[in-house]
């Protein structure tokens, strides 16, 4: 109700700054829209700070041979966060179908003993509701003693999983689908102006196409292991043409450019 009342606004750099409530509101509105802003700058930042670092790390193998490090040691440090294009037309609508290895699955499933989960979740309930702690400093920036939120070390005898070595459930490829809205809307209007009923026109023109697949030019890999992604990141940090194609796909072939 009082637009001039001062409030604290967290800047993108993480500092608090005092602004009027009205400015804060405008800022929130700006942040929450579906319109893309500075996405090219973000992608360039990803390239500079993340992909480039991966390339340097992979390239440094020769320097550290003395420590008997291999590329596999570097691959093992990483996991991949896959961030998807959206249906909302921030760019073009899109989604992905992943394919994964199910060879020899049937025999394996039949051989396995199946345990119900009830007992496990009952004991987890007790753990969760009892471990919220009474009188513990909730603003603590330090780790608690007996911190159960840091993981134990992976036992050495456990082999690497499907993200690192080809095996059952290893992702093998993906297909990225997209709806080219400009073309769909254009065809729709043409059909309607030709006298086709709107819903009939919609049925005939609306469709998703394959935008690209993981085996298309660039990725050059028959699997989607962490190592494949890291090698691809290294290539992206080096090759301009490949980077251009990657950004085009990041923006779902919408032709987006920062203003």
């Amino acid at each position, binding site marked *: 109700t009082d637009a001039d009342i001062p409030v604290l606004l967290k800047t993108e750099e993480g500092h608090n700054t005092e602004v009027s409530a009205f400015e804060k509101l405008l800022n*929130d509105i700006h942040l929450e829209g579906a319109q893309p802003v500075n996405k090219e700058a973000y992608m360039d930042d990803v390239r500079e700070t993340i992909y480039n670092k991966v390339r340097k790390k992979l390239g440094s193998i020769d320097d550290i041979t003395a420590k008997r490090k291999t590329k596999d040691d570097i691959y093992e*440090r990483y996991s991949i966060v896959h961030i*998807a294009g959206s249906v909302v037309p921030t760019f073009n609508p899109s989604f992905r179908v992943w394919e994964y*290895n199910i060879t020899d699955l049937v025999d394996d499933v039949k051989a396995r003993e199946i345990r119900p989960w009830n007992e*496990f979740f009952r004991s987890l309930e007790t753990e969760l509701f009892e471990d919220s702690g009474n009188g513990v400093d909730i603003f603590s920036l330090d780790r608690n003693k007996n911190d159960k939120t840091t993981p134990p070390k992976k036992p050495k005898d456990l082999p690497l999983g499907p993200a690192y070595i080809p095996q059952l*459930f290893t992702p093998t490829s993906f297909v990225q689908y997209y709806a080219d809205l400009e073309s769909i809307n254009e065809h729709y209007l043409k059909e309607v102006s030709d006298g086709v009923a709107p819903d009939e026109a919609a049925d005939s023109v609306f469709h998703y196409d394959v935008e690209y697949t993981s085996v298309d030019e660039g990725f050059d890999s028959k699997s989607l292991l962490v190592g494949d992604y890291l090698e691809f990141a290294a290539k992206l940090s080096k090759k301009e043409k490949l980077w251009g194609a990657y950004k085009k796909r990041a923006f779902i072939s919408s032709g987006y450019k920062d203003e």
Partner: protein
Amino acid sequence: DPYLGRNRTLYGRFLHITDIHPDRHYGENNSISRLCHYPPAQSSIFGSGDNDVDDLAPRFGKAMAGCDSPMDLIDYTLKWVRENLRDKIDFVIWTGDNIRHDNDRSIPRTESRIFEMNEIVSGKFHDLFSKHDSDDPRNLDVAVIPSLGNNDVFPHNLFSLGPTLQTRELYKIWDDFIPQEQQRTFDRVASFVKEVIPGKLAVISINTLYLFKSNPLVDNCNGRKQPGYQLLIWLGYVLQEIRERGMKVWISGHVPPIQKNMDDSCYNKFSAWTYEYRDIIIGGVYGHMNLDHFIPVDGKKSKKRIEKYS
């Protein structure tokens, strides 16, 4: 399916879909410069209201224009999935934001409207993937694993540790997708795990808002009462159980767990878990940023950081 003693065909394929953002106020031929909510003729603070053809909202939405999804885009997208993918996939990971953005001061979003739209979209997914000849609503042909988006909560981004009215309402909306034995733990952390190939493969749905630095209730993941701390306890137990069962797992959620989005302690701890359970975790799929890309996360470095700061 050894639980039910039924045979099922597997295709070695799954769908990841995210950030649908349906907007029932979107109208074909409304003014794009007015968020596709109002006809161009009316004068407004948003624009001149002239009859510029380029400013008219198309039926299926317009890329990069700043409007959310027309309901037609959602319905025709799901129709396309029904006709082209439904019978060729094993499961669906669906990572949230099922309501329009909070971008129009004239039509404020309310908690009930947010839940209502989530219920509508959840119903559409259920209709699409359920087994139509079954009386049991939990009997789906294709398992669906939803997760919570930062726009799916009220106020925007703000979501506290459960049990709360919001976590209970969410369970009610998704109860056909969440295994029944997890109702109480879901009430606590709004996360769950689903076996998509019984005894072999699971998908974890993580409520990433408990790690998200834009959630005003998240200070860090070190204090015991912090939502992220409780979520990580849940995650640790679940990962260990999956390992003991000899299963593998995908992790899914709305906000990607990358440094830009998470409080440092939450980011480091989450990355450390994915590193130490690299024998079972296949990967993580997320939404929120609308850009199709991948981020490699150095889990060993995160572990070192935790050790350094402790």
